[in-house]
């Protein structure tokens, strides 16, 4: 089975994240780049499926040169090889542009299963997997907390507000995973060493047959008009519990008309 796992580099949430003042895109230099956490779960799930059913796991990342660190991390976890879609023309692509560029690349490299995280910590749109399914014309099995494959059939549990839906489809398909699906492994020393020798194919816009007029900031379907730091919250009242902390909290709630 040919599994492609889409992995994104995001700014570390523990550092301060900023938008650039010139073009209002994410300032990727201001913060350390790390693998998007949900993508680690996606890599883990891809590896487990490969271990159970055989095949190969390819990492696919669209991002600047710096994103190669994230690719190495996924390779160190055990993925077999990687494709790095990197081109200045892609800078500032919105969800529509990103999904188009990734879909073109996926068509080029081929896949039986595409695995994504259900959301990224920077964009937080949570729409990419659905968009890929739409663009590729394959089943959408998103927000999965369990994935089962049997020959050409795939079944997932799709997390919902009320519990979950059991969803069935046939391969090829797009899957996105939620946090509790598995416990991502740590790369071993051996894995880290092996990753250095694995193939990372760099593709530009032309290589992946991406129409440059459909990607990049200038061609986005939406734009940021302006932005500002959120005003800090006013300092609150903090009291020490002297046996009446609950009563004081109730007084506060009453003053705000919550009780």
């Amino acid at each position, binding site marked *: 089975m040919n599994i492609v796992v889409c992995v994104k580099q995001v700014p570390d*949430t523990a550092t*301060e994240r*900023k*938008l650039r003042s010139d073009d209002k895109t994410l300032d990727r230099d201001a913060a350390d780049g790390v693998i998007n*956490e949900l993508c680690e779960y996606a890599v883990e799930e891809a590896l487990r499926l490969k271990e159970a059913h055989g095949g190969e796991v390819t990492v696919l990342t669209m991002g600047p040169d710096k994103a190669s660190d994230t690719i190495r991390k996924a390779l160190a976890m055990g993925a077999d090889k990687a494709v790095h879609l990197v081109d200045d023309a892609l800078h500032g692509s919105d*969800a*529509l542009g990103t*999904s188009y560029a990734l879909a073109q690349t996926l068509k080029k490299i081929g896949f039986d299963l595409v695995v994504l995280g259900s959301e990224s*910590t920077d964009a*937080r*749109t*949570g*729409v*990419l997997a*659905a*968009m890929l399914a*739409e663009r590729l014309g*394959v*089943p*959408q*099995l*998103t*927000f999965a907390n369990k994935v089962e494959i049997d020959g050409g059939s795939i079944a997932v549990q799709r*997390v*919902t*507000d*009320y*519990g*979950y839906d*059991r969803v*069935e*489809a046939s391969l090829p398909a797009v899957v996105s995973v939620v*946090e*509790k699906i598995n416990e991502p492994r740590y790369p071993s020393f051996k894995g880290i060493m092996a990753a250095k020798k694995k193939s990372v194919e760099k593709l530009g816009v032309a290589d992946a047959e991406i129409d440059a007029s459909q990607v990049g900031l200038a061609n986005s*379907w*939406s734009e940021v*008009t*302006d*932005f*500002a*730091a*959120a005003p800090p*919250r*006013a300092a*609150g*009242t*903090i*009291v*020490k*519990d002297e046996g009446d*902390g*609950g*009563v*004081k*909290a*109730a007084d506060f709630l*009453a003053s*705000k008309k*919550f*009780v």
Partner: protein
Amino acid sequence: MSEILVLVEHVEGQVKKVTLELLTLARKLGVPSAVWAGPGYSPEAKAKLAEYGAEKIYVADSADVNDYVVAPKAELLAQLVSEKSPAAVLVAATAEAKEIAGRLAIKIDSGVLTDAVGIEESLVADQSIFGGGVNVRSRVTKGTPIVAVRPNSTPVEAAAGAGAEEQVSVTVSDAAKAARIVERVKQEKGARPELTEAAIVVSGGRGVGSAENFSIIEKLADSLGAAVGASRAATDAGWYPHQFQVGQTGKTVSPQLYIAAGISGAIQHRAGMQTAKTIVAVNKDPEAPIFELADFGVVGDLNQVVPQLTEEVAKRK
């Protein structure tokens, strides 16, 4: 004025509050038309939608629309967009409705904005990003704007609309039938409001100490008519189900009141609750970062403070 399509969120035939918020918002932008997808449509639902300003209600209540993941609903909306040429399409910023919006955007070649907390008449949307740290204004530059709006970001206001019903027949394409829902498993959550919709959320973290002890969080929630949330430390420990996790990799909530008990206030937790209007924290550590956000904080043991608060709330009702 032009039509604004509002995709209705409903459970068991009941219109969810966020839809009333969207209708209220849509009245500012144009003339709201509600779109009902899936079974459960009823005279009560119709009355509710009309009460909050739906001039038209498009009903596509065939089972087909509901039996497959996301795609049929995107097809339905795409069909309506091409027939009615609305000025915008509004959906709730729930996981599923955002996916519908995403697929719709591709079908109609239009921009989509997710997690808006407000929309101006010019269709510029306000978004709060990086865990509430930055406020952004953005707009769609191509096609019919599609905006996913966060629950609890607009106060609801009734204003009657005609509620003229129009049956829509959709033929769901084979491509949209690729992922079939074979079973819906409902996990009991009792009578509490839904986490993202609730006006009040009471959350517990590692400080709660055990699954059993979450009952003190639930009791406070019930006394306030609130939903229960949990930090990742609590869901990781298996004390509370994952779907109640608040934060970066859980739900984002924007309630009127958020009460955090035994939660330190890590940045990833704050990402999911920072836009709450009022925040109350109970934590035994005076240095806990949650106090930086709190409008009111009690430094103390939650095992004492929370039950006392529950009792006081009950007394004052």
